[in-house]
């Protein structure tokens, strides 16, 4: 029997899917209404997600099961638990801000209903992946997310290179998806279950296929996280995509890789079995952190600087996951949320700078402090947050991730992780200093449209609030720990 919350879960997905289909079907007849429909859908979906918090707090929810292909034993399952909730909430917030930012950003862009339709499909892909409780649905939404985002880059991306970039993005991330798919197939063939909770119950952790499945999942999800060296799709895709899509790619879609790692290897496999892989994750985490930061230091295109910073930030997350401690896992999940907020903020600001000046090479910019209606302060909040300044969002998660490194036997890696964070401050301040405080090179500054300005202010406020009052998010995240690694974490 379906409970009320089952309807809510369906509605979270349904609102976006239905709105997307309507927008795409209506085509040019809904040109003016398209953005408001999309905004309304994302707002509703976000409201519904928040309304699930009290329900979740009252106890674990019963998953929703719908028969789909009875002959093959495939059912469609949706579920919301403490692992998926933080990710879902993050995606909803990011989608809302991306669409809100797009209200003015897309004014001049052609075929807006289709754009918003695809954007909602992209968002639905992410929500569906997070809510899915069976292999089939998970993979379906996983691919929907990829296809919708690829189409958005292909049609509305900047520059002539967008076709090539889309191809690169699609093929590399799809290769990662295939590895995940192979992992699913192996799991399915050994357990005979497609349903996550049933699969978990039937899972024999001592079986010989476990290492293979773990490696497949880890590599597959690391592609989505853009961990070095499988990050090569990210800088191009992020810099070519239109800004609302970039915001969603960087702030929300990257987190799907983290979700995948938490959901599959970490919630299936015991602590003992997974401990072999922890150090690998830590090593690649440090590598990614340092390499991404170096690239951000080297880059001149301001959009690509922030894109490379994602590679670096994902390194922090992977390092936290690799420590296999409750502080590390909590820190990684927190970092996903904080990274989403701050990354969205920085991309909004980058979009605003480009809109106001028409330039995106850092050498061509300068002297913008006090000339962009407070954008300098917002960028300062963003880069200082990534630099780990206390009282701003990212500090809390970085603190947990750093401390978790010292709870493992690999003190050297933990020390490297902390030293690598100096580079984060380096590229952040270079970004801020050269754009705003260097001698002025920009002669003409256009006003920044209202929705673009307000989106960045809203995200900056969230960055400060999340930094000053971390407890509510901590409390939500803490609930996921008993569900991971067989509940063995302290």
């Amino acid at each position, binding site marked *: 029997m379906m409970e009320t919350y089952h309807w809510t879960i369906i509605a979270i997905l349904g609102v976006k899917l239905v709105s997307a289909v309507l927008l795409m079907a209506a085509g040019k007849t809904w040109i003016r209404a398209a953005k408001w429909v999309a905004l309304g859908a994302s707002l509703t979906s976000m409201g519904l997600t928040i309304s699930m918090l009290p329900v979740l707090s009252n106890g674990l929810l019963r998953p929703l099961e719908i028969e789909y292909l009875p002959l093959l034993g495939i059912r469609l399952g949706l579920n919301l638990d403490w692992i998926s909730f933080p990710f879902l909430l993050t995606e909803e917030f990011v989608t809302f801000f991306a669409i809100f930012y797009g209200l003015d950003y897309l004014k001049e862009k052609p075929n807006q209903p289709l754009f918003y339709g695809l954007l909602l499909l992209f968002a639905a892909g992410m929500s569906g992946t997070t809510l899915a409780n069976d292999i089939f649905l998970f993979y379906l939404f996983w691919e929907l997310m990829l296809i919708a985002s690829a189409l958005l880059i292909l049609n509305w991306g900047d520059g002539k290179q967008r076709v090539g970039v889309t*191809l690169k993005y699609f093929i590399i991330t799809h290769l990662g998806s295939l590895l995940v798919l192979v992992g699913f197939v192996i799991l399915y063939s050994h357990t005979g279950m497609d349903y996550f909770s049933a699969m978990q119950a039937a899972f024999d952790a001592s079986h010989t296929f476990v290492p293979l499945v773990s490696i497949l999942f880890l590599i597959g999800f690391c592609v989505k996280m853009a961990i070095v060296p499988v990050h*090569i799709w990210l800088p*191009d895709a992020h810099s070519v995509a239109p800004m609302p899509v970039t915001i969603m790619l960087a702030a929300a879609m990257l987190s799907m890789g983290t979700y995948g790692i938490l959901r599959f290897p970490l919630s299936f496999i015991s602590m003992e079995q997974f401990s072999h892989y922890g150090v690998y994750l830590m090593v690649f985490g440090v590598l990614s952190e340092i390499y991404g930061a*170096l690239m951000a230091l080297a*880059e001149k295109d301001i959009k690509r600087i922030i894109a490379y910073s994602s590679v670096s930030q994902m390194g922090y997350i992977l390092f936290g996951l690799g420590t296999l401690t409750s502080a590390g896992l909590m820190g990684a999940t927190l970092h996903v949320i904080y990274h989403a907020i701050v990354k969205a903020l920085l991309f909004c600001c980058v979009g605003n700078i480009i809109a106001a000046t028409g330039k995106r090479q850092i050498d061509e910019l300068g002297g913008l402090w006090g000339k962009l209606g407070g954008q300098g302060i917002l960028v300062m909040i963003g880069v200082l947050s990534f630099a780990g300044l206390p009282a701003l969002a990212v500090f809390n998660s970085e603190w947990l991730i750093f401390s978790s490194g010292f709870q493992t036997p690999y003190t050297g890696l933990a020390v490297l992780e902390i030293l690598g964070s*100096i580079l984060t*401050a380096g590229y952040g301040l270079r970004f801020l*200093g050269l754009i705003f405080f260097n001698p*002025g090179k920009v002669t003409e500054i256009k006003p920044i449209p209202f929705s673009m300005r307000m989106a960045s202010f809203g995200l900056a406020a969230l960055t400060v609030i999340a930094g000053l009052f971390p407890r509510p998010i901590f409390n939500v995240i803490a609930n996921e720990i008993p569900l991971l690694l067989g509940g063995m974490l302290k």
Partner: protein
Amino acid sequence: MVNLVLLWLLISPLALAGGWLVLAGRGLQRIKYLGAALLVGLSGLLALLVVHLPQPPEPLCLFTHPSAGEMCVRADASSLKLIALLNLMMAILIGSRMHTLAITPVQASFLFASLSAGNLALLSEHFLLRYIALELAAIWFLIELFLAFKGEESQIRQSISAFINLRVGDAGLLIAIFLMLSASGSFIIMRSLESALGLRADHLAITILGLVLAVWVKLGIWPLNWWARIGGHLHATLFTWFCRLLIPVLGGYLLYRSAVLIAAAPDLANLIAILACLSALLSTLIRIFHSAYRDTILANQSFASCLLLGLAAVGKSDQILPALISFLAARLLIDMLRHTEVEFNAQQKSIRTMWLLGARMLELILFIPLIFHIASGFNQGVWIWLLWMGLGVQMLLNAGKLDIFFMTKGKGKQPIKAVLQTSGMISLAALSSLTLHHLSRIWTDQDHSLWPMNIFNQSLQAYGMVLLSFFFAGILLWLVKYLQKSPALKALLHQAAETIEKMLPKHMQAVSRQDVLDQTPLLVRVYRKGIQFLGEREDIFDQYPRLIRMFSKMTRFLYERVEQFTSVDIWRKLQESVIHLARRLQEMHTGKLRLNLIWVVVVLVILVVLYLSGRLDVINAHG
């Protein structure tokens, strides 16, 4: 009552910061400054009062962090004394420079926010809280740098380097905090430090090195003092002055608290002592060519900080706090003097020299036990000679800075006047510095036996004699000038001058009577005559300039090799090379689908290393 005062110390500067922003452009500037000076002064006095009150058993917990627990502050006598001094200094400076202060409302609010962060860092009994306060102090400094250097490309890049420099220190502190956390399971400072003593040897070593790195950077010790160098190039506003002072004080206090840990690892402590000595010596050699006043002050700060670090390394942590307090007080004195109505040249020279000599007195007090300790701890002649050589260089430098060479070279009367005028001030400053140090030790330790070793007495007495001779020379000059007004004496002096003139070589006799009446050239001539007289008998004075030139060449060589290496330019170049290297790496995977072979190699190498390390573990496990 005590807790209320603690809250006042934290909140009142923040209220001032907010109030200043709100009242920007409103009200009389002078009244606002006066109000701020009174409020900050009151904070200082309250801190002093609390030192003598019975301390409450429980700390005052301000915040709770989900992952770090309750974050508390505690009224500790040592921190309260520093807070009192900081606040009183600030009040005196605001009050005394009310008319000349030109800071914007934003700078003023940053200033008071920094004061609050400083008070918080000194009072906090929780490592996370202290880290937060230290970071906040650093970030206000960075923002000030950015705002001050707005529109100057190279300076902006250097500001970034300055903040990164501070972050290097913070990284060291973080590493130490987390290692201590792994031993104690707590961020409470006292508990963490006690538990850290039980860490295994390698972790204890990393913890100590992390702490020393943090202290090294924050104290502004060469060569990790770029932040202080860059800060030194700022226009001297009250805010920049305060930041440049606050961060070293916070570093010094961190050293004071963590000295117990350094002493727990004697081998490492000796290494730190040697490093501190080397840094002190090299930075001293280098500063000979720093003609700018700010660089000289910076070099002195670095030297004094080395000594603080050295004191901790040799287990004399009880002397750190008095040294820190006297450093603060001397700094206040210097800053006050900078704005007195002294003739410009003389003022510049006197301040610089005063600093050098004022600091020298401290250095002599602190440096000698350090050398002795290392000499006795390490039975290696090379170190002993190196350090004694360093001490000798210090003495030489003092002579150099007294501008004796000006006199021998005879560059005119004005520098000589300045030198003589300066000597009085130098002596006063040196004596003041000594007295301050004495008083601060009595205040902090209630220790009335000031000089525990005879060698101190002798050294100080000898040094004091030299200084006093200059002091008396100054007084003599003043007396001569006064007596010149007497006609009888004037005639006498005239006659004396004529007599002396006849004794002088011919090329020096073409001096007007009026000049002769001025006693400065007279003194110069007498001095030269004396040297000439001695020179005819001994060759030492012929050798002296040669020695000086040789020494000058040596130090120039060091300057060009070492100082240039650590200059901001080099760090900028280093940063550029990192960027260049990163760009080369980036070029390796441009294009649409090109997955460069380098990535495959990188991954393979990592995997092989991990695999081999795993195999090694297995082999080890099997015996």
